[in-house]
């Protein structure tokens, strides 16, 4: 572990309210430990700002162990910063150079309006879940888990999809602000399993329509989302969604519905 501390120039997006224009403000922050996380570095910046009587920078954070999906930030153009499969709270300052200028921006997407500084509203992702990212289940005593056989391959794949923490990095990384990686993962984690079958095709249509209604863009299959995803969600789940939606529409057409 390096003992040498870092002196940084932080170019941070400051925006007072959702309607305010916003601008970049550059701060100098000295003596940052390379062992601190990016969020701890921002905490240091805020302490410095409070001491000088300035408004601290607002940013989202919660668990600080990479599982809640609350932290965001686009750091030097990459959601959650450089490094594969990490969230911003798992990004360490040792990945930066002494004297480096670091640009910190909020996630950029029309459906994710900036609320303040680096905080964006990611509620549209919840709306997509509400449209079909669940199963309907009778309450009462649960049946024995082992009475429903699921092959290892399918269970693994469903778990890979379920690893999505809903942070929105896929939307932030996509030049079209498309939420297809998120929607594909949230749809496939259920559509792969027997418990998800009864509502499979209704789910496909409702989640895709909700995704469109919330103003997310279209996928151009470039794969930036997969690269930015802190959980390594694969483009395979977008393909699964594409297939399930196509089958759903064909079924709906031949069932005589509109």
């Amino acid at each position, binding site marked *: 572990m390096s003992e040498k501390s870092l002196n940084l120039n932080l170019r941070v997006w400051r925006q007072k309210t959702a309607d305010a224009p916003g601008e*970049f403000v550059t701060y100098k922050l000295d003596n940052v430990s390379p062992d601190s996380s990016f969020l701890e570095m921002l905490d240091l910046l805020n302490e410095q700002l409070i001491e000088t009587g300035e408004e601290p920078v607002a940013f989202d954070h919660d668990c600080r162990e990479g599982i809640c999906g609350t932290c965001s930030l*686009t750091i*030097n*153009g*990459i959601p959650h910063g450089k490094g594969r499969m990490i969230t911003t709270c798992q990004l360490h300052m040792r990945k930066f150079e002494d004297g480096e200028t670091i*640009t910190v*921006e909020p996630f*950029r*997407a*029309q*459906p994710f309006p900036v609320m303040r500084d680096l905080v964006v509203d990611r509620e549209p992702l919840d709306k997509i879940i509400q449209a079909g990212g669940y199963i309907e289940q009778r309450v009462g005593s649960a049946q024995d888990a082992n009475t429903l056989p699921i092959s290892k391959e399918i269970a693994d794949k469903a778990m890979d999809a379920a690893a999505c923490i809903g942070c929105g990095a896929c939307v932030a*990384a*996509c*030049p*079209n*602000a*498309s939420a*297809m990686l998120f929607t594909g993962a949230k749809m496939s984690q259920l559509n792969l399993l027997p418990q998800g079958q009864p509502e499979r095709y209704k789910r496909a249509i409702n989640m*895709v*329509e909700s*995704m*469109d209604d919330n*103003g*997310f*863009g*279209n*996928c*151009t*299959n*470039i*794969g*930036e989302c*997969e*690269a*930015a995803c802190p959980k390594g969600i*694969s*483009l*395979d789940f*977008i*393909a*699964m*969604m*594409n*297939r*399930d*939606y*196509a089958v759903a*529409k064909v079924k709906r057409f031949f069932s005589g519905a509109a």
Partner: protein
Amino acid sequence: MTSLGKKYVMAVSGLILVGFVIGHMIGNLQMFLHPDWINAYAYKLQNLPYGLLWVVRLVLFAAVVAHIVTAVLLVIENRRARPRGYSVDKPIQSTFASRTMRYSGVILLAFIVFHILHFTTQHVHPEFRDLYRPLEGVPTMHAAYDLLEATGKNNVHDVYSMVAIGFSAQYWYVSLFYVIAMGLLFLHLSHGISSMFQSVGLRNHVWRVRLDRAALVISIALFLGFASIPVAGLLGILPYQDMVQGAYIHTHPTP
């Protein structure tokens, strides 16, 4: 139409166009055989039974229109979804080709319009309409000679000379434009051929690698096959270069 509906339209229209482009390239390579080959081939295409030529043209036109209209809708929606970009924007893993589909597509559209005016309607060189050459009866797979010779109609449009003159050194800029356009076709298809499978949900991480590689191989083959003809025309090194009609004089200005 939903986002995915538009992606299906892009994929299916793209598939039709890729299929056409592969067939077109293979047909064009007859420029490296005796002039009878491409002239008899062109005659057969122009005289397909049941108006099939127009059926094919209409299908291709519909595919092009669908591909372009949908692409424009997608671009408009995508701009609306991301009105503000990043001040620092760094692609992580996406390819140059995948990020520039809209630009390669627009230039290819300009190329297609020029190409049709050049060799199909021949508005660029109206004199091309007067180029005729009798089939010599060299054995080809088209079997047009025996039928036409019997009816005395074997003086067919000399596509061989038309293409060779169109790409000759005096029109070096035309050949250059064709080669550049085929470079863009390579870019467009190196992403598109694999992407269409993703759009309709027929791809996973195993097939993604295979399809990406197949797309690369097909796009390189298309580039080499197509670009070889303007290059050979420009350098005057077609195998039957001496059979190019020499009396051609360009009199009409470009419209």
